[in-house]
């Protein structure tokens, strides 16, 4: 029998929240990127590849410059370059988004693995842990203090970004254009706004955010780049974006929950419970399947999703 009082200590809860945040932030960046892209009507299956490219070049940036910010910047750039393929092939030429997405994922996995091996062989250099910033007063709270309010700056920026994105979607013309490009591209075109342009910027932002998510993973969360580092997180991000139904705040909550689930096995080990890692890893996916079975009717995607826009075509 598990003695509840012994296990549910502050240390355990701190590790749950901190682990959830650590694993959730890269998911959140990537899922926000997918949200933008899906709202604009482009289904981006290539997130996994974009994340890996961002993670690898971001790691290189941080490794050679010694600055995590350089790592993030390079990661963003890398993700954008990877997404450029999608912009040209899917948005400009209107080719199949799913096939191109799979291609980007495969090529991203292959290129980063080959490049890593060619550059470092079988050694995996480590980066130092990023410095954290404590929020005055709040960081002294019992459980949330050390887990939530002593984080690298980028985590706080991520929270600000969620708010900014929600505001952009709801209150600005840019957000309206994005949503129109996914809901009814003809209307956007008739209003004199370029659908292709809007979608191009959306996909580029997706690439940038996926690259940043990947860079966070390699630079801040693990401090190391190994081939296939993301382990399907790009696909989890797609699911979070779809379940979030285009709302950044929901995406934030979903990413955090998934982050907790992904890091729960470590927390349970801290608490002294020996449970199979495989079973714990299964929990988030099983939860999603159950949620989909229960709420299948309520899920929503933009009508023009994954359809290339050709002016004048019915």
């Amino acid at each position, binding site marked *: 029998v598990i003695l509840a009082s012994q296990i549910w200590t502050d240390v355990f809860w701190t590790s749950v929240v901190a682990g959830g945040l650590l694993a959730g932030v890269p998911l959140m960046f990537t899922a926000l990127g997918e949200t933008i892209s899906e709202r604009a009507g482009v289904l981006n299956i290539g997130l996994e590849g974009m994340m890996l490219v961002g993670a690898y070049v971001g790691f290189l940036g941080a490794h050679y410059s010694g600055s995590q910010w350089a790592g993030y910047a390079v990661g963003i750039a890398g993700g954008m370059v990877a997404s450029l393929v999608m912009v040209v*092939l899917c948005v400009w030429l*209107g080719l199949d988004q799913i096939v191109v997405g799979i*291609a980007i994922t495969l090529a991203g996995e*292959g290129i980063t693995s080959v490049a890593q091996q060619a550059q470092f062989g079988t050694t995996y250099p480590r980066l130092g842990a990023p410095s954290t910033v404590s929020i005055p007063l709040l960081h002294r709270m019992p459980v949330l203090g050390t887990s939530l309010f002593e984080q690298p700056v980028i985590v706080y920026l991520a929270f600000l970004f969620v708010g900014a994105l929600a505001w952009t979607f709801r209150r600005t013309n840019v957000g309206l254009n994005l949503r129109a490009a996914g809901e009814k591209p003809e209307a956007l075109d008739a209003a004199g706004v370029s659908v292709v342009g809007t979608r191009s910027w959306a996909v580029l932002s997706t690439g940038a955010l996926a690259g940043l998510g990947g860079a966070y993973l390699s630079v801040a969360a693990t401090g190391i780049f190994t081939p296939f580092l993301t382990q399907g997180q790009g*696909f989890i991000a*797609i699911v979070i974006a779809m379940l979030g139904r285009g709302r950044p705040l929901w995406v934030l909550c979903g990413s955090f929950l998934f982050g907790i689930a992904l890091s729960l096995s470590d927390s349970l080990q801290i608490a002294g419970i020996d449970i199979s890692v495989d079973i714990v*890893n299964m929990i988030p996916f099983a939860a999603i399947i159950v949620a989909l079975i229960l709420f299948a009717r309520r*899920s929503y995607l933009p009508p023009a999703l994954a359809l290339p826009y050709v002016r004048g075509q019915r």
Partner: protein
Amino acid sequence: MSVETASPEIQQILAGETIRGRSNLASRVLDVTVRSLLPVVCALGAGAILLLAMGRHPIAFYGDVWQGGVSGGGWDAWQDSAIRMAPLLLIAAGLTVIFRANIWNLGYNGQFLLAAALVTGYGPSVTKHVALWFAMLVLFLMAGAVAATWTVVPAVLKARYGTNEIITTLMMSFIGVDLAGYLIKKPFQDHSVNIPQTRVLDLDKMLPPIPGTRIHIGLLVAFGAILVVHFLLTRTSWGLRLQILGANPRAARHVGINLPRLIVTGFLLSGFLVGLAAAADFLGLWGYIRGSQNPGYGDTVIPFVFLARLNALAVVPFIAFFSVLSVGGDLAATNANLSTDFLLVLVGLILLFMTVIEYLGRRRDLGGSYLPPGLKDALKAPLWRRRR
């Protein structure tokens, strides 16, 4: 929530549409052949450039691929490639079925590994108690049934609510991979070794080889499955209905096709074939499975299923080619001191080139030029402004 219509070039592949505007059979065949082979050639060329950029010798690399996959060991290496073909062909058959309906079963990894874990886990005890042929039959059917079961949730959600099957199959795949890992590490663990691994099947309890070769008879099962799938898709009303669903779901509903039943049966057959692939590979070649073992066959099969234009027979030469590439690629990558994941780059490139070449071909069919108008004008008159 469904993505209902495919983009035109995939639709064209899905509909098995013949190339319009040309009646001559020979030129049509030539056209299809060129369009199917060109992406592979382009990808190999781009791969050669990448190899050069990394300071490797491309001719030596591709030479090693040929040696490792076909001619090595005194013309013996081709048997390794043939062995690799068995699971790849079965997965390709499974994906062909479901892609025909323009439905994406991307959960092949979970389906494959779960079937593999069960087959290797129960294999030693099943083969001990009954005759080998009966044990193999039971194990193959079990693998197929398990993998088919793993598609039920995505299939029903897609059929009833139109839930995006990409998401649901991927989710089920992740669950399946984790569950397979758990099964291998806990109930099926071989206690005589220290690493997570199932008990090893005795050599004489594995799939027997085709007489005169080292190739296990799983390859014959694979060819049989290809023939059956081809028959189902091209000679039965079920196949026709699947094709209509793929080309235009609204039209399919309009002509009174029972879509939910069709979607579910398509998914089940697809999963069943993926399960057979796992049985063939692990009963024929491996005999055991390790905790982290994931051959990832499905990812690399997808491009070839499309290049074969979702035709089950046409997929055979492509899979043969890729088997050589992947078996020989291991040797070539080792010799060139490269990661074997270089093959993933090649496969990704094949997919990208395929979509582009399909796009250009479609423009040609519609009476247009191979080149987009803007680019053509720019090429014609690069230096002076054109007048309209």
